[in-house]
């Protein structure tokens, strides 16, 4: 059971993980179950939304009001473009923070590193655990969407749901690996949480609002959200833009391994 840093990192989550899973299932189920009602009143809602400022729509993953009123558009806006992804992101951040900064904060890093385990492996195995558990959270979304889709007649495709779920994992790991990296570079837990959570919120709004101002539109491309949501994988399936997120994650993990190796461990 406790056979490696990877296994121990997962073991650490054995109690709290249930609640992340419950939250994820709840948002998915509520969204899907709400769809038939929404569809019935779609005319009224469409009118309402067309009166909303453009920025509000953008923030929730749609460029046109009409997009909300398709099954996939609605699921995308609630699960992948907002609440669901936020759950996955904050879970990944909590694991990324715990890996190095959290271990140092608790004062157990000396004891761990006195074992013949290279620091780079501590980082890598903690990331592996983060990737696995985040993937399982997204897998819950994937399964529950595909199971409930025929019941509520949402109209999701397997390819689209798979692409969006994988995209959710990559989006979450982008922020989770950022937390891992900041923690590995600084060993400072509050700073790590602050930077990772702050970046999440800031880039979410930049992605939604930057396109409204022509001179700021380029900033959208700096946000992980853009590389997932801009091509709407739930509708369009896998697109090469997702590779940008893969690249960002690999760089963050590599910097984390390098950064932790070269600095003093804090007491």
């Amino acid at each position, binding site marked *: 059971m*406790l056979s490696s840093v990877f296994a*121990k990192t997962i073991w650490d989550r054995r109690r709290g993980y249930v609640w992340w899973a419950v939250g994820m299932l709840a948002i998915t189920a509520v969204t899907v179950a709400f769809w038939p009602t929404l569809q019935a009143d779609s005319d009224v809602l469409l009118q309402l939304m067309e009166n909303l400022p453009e920025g509000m729509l953008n923030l929730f993953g749609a460029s046109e009001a009409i997009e909300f009123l398709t099954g996939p558009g609605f699921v995308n806006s609630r699960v992948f473009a907002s609440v669901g992804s936020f759950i996955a992101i904050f879970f990944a951040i909590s694991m990324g923070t715990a890996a190095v900064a959290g271990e140092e904060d608790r004062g157990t890093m000396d*004891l761990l*590193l*006195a*074992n013949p*385990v*290279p620091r780079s492996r501590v980082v890598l195995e903690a990331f592996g655990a983060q990737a696995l558990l985040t993937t399982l959270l997204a897998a819950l979304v994937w399964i529950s969407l595909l199971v409930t889709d025929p019941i509520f007649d949402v109209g999701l495709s397997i390819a689209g749901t798979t692409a969006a779920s994988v995209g959710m994992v990559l989006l979450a790991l982008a922020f989770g690996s950022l937390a891992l990296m900041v923690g590995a570079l600084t060993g400072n837990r509050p700073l790590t949480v602050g930077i990772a959570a702050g970046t999440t919120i800031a880039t979410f709004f930049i992605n939604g609002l930057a396109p409204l101002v022509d001179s700021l539109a380029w900033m959208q491309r700096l946000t992980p959200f853009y590389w997932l949501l801009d091509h709407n994988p739930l509708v369009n399936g896998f697109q090469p833009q997702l590779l940008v997120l893969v690249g960002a994650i690999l760089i963050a993990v590599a910097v984390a391994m390098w950064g932790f190796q070269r600095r003093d461990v804090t007491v």
Partner: protein
Amino acid sequence: MAPVIRTSGLTKYYGRTRGIEDLTLEVEPGQIFGFLGPNGAGKSTTIRLLLDFIRPTSGLAEVFGIPTTADPIAIHRRVGYVPGELALYDTMTGLELVRYFASLRRVKDLTEARRVAAALDLDLSRVIRSYSGGNRQKLALVQAFLHRPELLILDEPSSGLDPLIQQEFYGLVDEVRREGRTVFLSSHILPEVERIADRVAIIRGGSLVAVAAIAELKAKAVHRLELHFTTSADPTTFGAIPGVRQVSSADEDRVLTLWIEGSVDAVIKEAARHEVVNLVSHEGDLEEAFLAFYAKAGSDAQ
């Protein structure tokens, strides 16, 4: 034989704050090496440099002849460690922690861990959160011993242990000595170092003050001898004997109290010229020798 630990000009600054400065020492195989100094003297800094948790500002440290920054993993494989600032995984049981670290060391056989836990009277089945400070310290010792390392690096290992368990710990160290393994032990408790170490380095304010064999220190220690005679004896005769630091007399010179550095032989021979009613010896106090070192270092600094 090559030294197990060798440092040369080892210096560590945290920004502008001094950790240790120009520390040069050697620990030979099989030695129980006491690293003595008050809190904040740089003991933990030195130990954390040896294990490559922190990197020297300048100078060199080698363990088993391996530079600490070159291959710390090869060093960790052969070292057991008790940290000074002890923190453990509170949600694990003692046994889970032992199993975890045993796996990381690829040790399958937990016999040694269970033996040490039994010797220290530690219940491994309980969750660490419920452990007292003493029990936590015991668990730290158990995990340090579990792979029977060639070198034990123990940072204030007996802090929080009650006196009875401390004796058990000293017993464990004696075993390690008999097996020819090496111990590097930091402490601010002098009698502890005196009890278990062969050699002692005294560190203060980040610098090495002295390195000496315990026996050597003891030789420098000042004994107090009380001599009771039937008739008066001349204090000045005794005061003139080499090694005698001070003489005081009472009861019309029939009771002399002498402070003697090193051997008491000459004093006993002089005393034998009189009729001795009683002789009371107070064992040489290492603490006084230690303080003498400190006083000297202090006056040198001024």
